[in-house]
């Protein structure tokens, strides 16, 4: 088998990040569509939430880098 299982782990982590940020972005879009005046507040909150979700996914990437045991 080529490659290491750490790479698979990192890929799985990115699935979580994708789902999370996708949800945040989607709800933000709905909110802006319902009330365009609040667009900038919603956008700020969306960016903050996206950065937090991404932080968690990057934990997993760091663990994958640490646990990488190349054959």
């Amino acid at each position: 088998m080529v490659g290491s299982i750490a790479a698979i782990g990192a890929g799985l982590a990115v699935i979580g990040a994708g789902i999370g940020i996708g949800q945040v972005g989607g709800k933000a879009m709905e909110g802006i569509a319902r009330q365009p005046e609040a667009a900038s507040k919603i956008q700020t909150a969306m960016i903050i939430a996206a950065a937090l979700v991404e932080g968690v996914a990057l934990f997993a990437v760091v663990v994958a880098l640490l646990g990488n045991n190349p054959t």
Partner: protein
Amino acid sequence: MYFSPILNLKNSALKALFALFITFLSFQAVANQENKAEVTVTTGEDAATHSEEKFDPTVTILEHIGDSHSFHLWGHTSMPLPVILITPSGLDIFSSSNLMDEHHEPVAFTSKYTYLNEEEHIKVLGANGEIDEELSNKIYDFSITKNVFALFLSVAIILIIFLSVAKAYKKTVGKAPKGLQSWVEPIIIFIRDDIARPNIGYKYEKFMPLLLTIFFFIWINNLLGLIPIFPGGANVTGNIAITMVLAVIVLIVVNLNGNKYYWSHIFKPDVPFWLLPIMWVVEIIGIISKPFALMIRLFANITAGHIIVLSLISLIFIFKTAWMSLAAVPFVLFMNVLELLVAFLQAFIFTMLTALFIGTAVEEHHH
């Protein structure tokens, strides 16, 4: 992209600046390529394969995001940085050019002890030429490495900007800001009104210096790390030791400023008495894990961005054809612009979370 508002400007200086910005971004990819080409020649010297130097992307990428005792400028030129060691027999200072030959291979150097630079850790060689692990653990490496040099540089930039702005404020008291002040003032107002005041409340002024320092330190170091040539290009905020120091500072500030209600929420939360031991464990882990998350978030975001850009450029060398650059360079350009956003965003998030944690520590009791 809708460029015509910029292109229709009467101010030709601004147009020129914009053109420079776009060409700079494109040159960056080319400069990275040249860097890469020379580095493969030097790192391929000791590769097992002979006539064709095998390009190892992992080694090249790790070399670029890691720390180093010399600052690689361009091509074969690099600037050796001083090595400062505190050994059991005193202080030892010499240039790191003593530790490498002209192909940047490590070479042993004898001063107080015999040193060898094994993967950027300085080890001591015993009498028989073998690495003496026990003695190596006793020397403390306080060298000016690439990251330390870049740290000094960014500190100098921050000091220059803010000391001159402070002086300008003293001169134009009560008048409109002009010059560099007009760039710095909206950012400081943004941090005060959108980050400090909503999260900390009326006691925010005491913490403004810390928040401003954290924000500008992280932002300017992130930006310097994105510049491909000297004096940029050192991966400062992608070094976990530096982010750890920032996180420890946040930990200390938050816990030293905790008031009665903060500590009572931690040690006497509103739960049945038999749950208290578990709650103590959970809350103490919570105190540690919040700055820990800050540390990992900043480190991983910046390092991941650098690794992505370096990997895309390495694609050109893996496929060994210049036509690959038609695909890779636009992608690299896009990733670099994204990294500009990430540089600001990570600084903003770090500062905002710090303000949030300080806010929970100084919060008044209102039930």
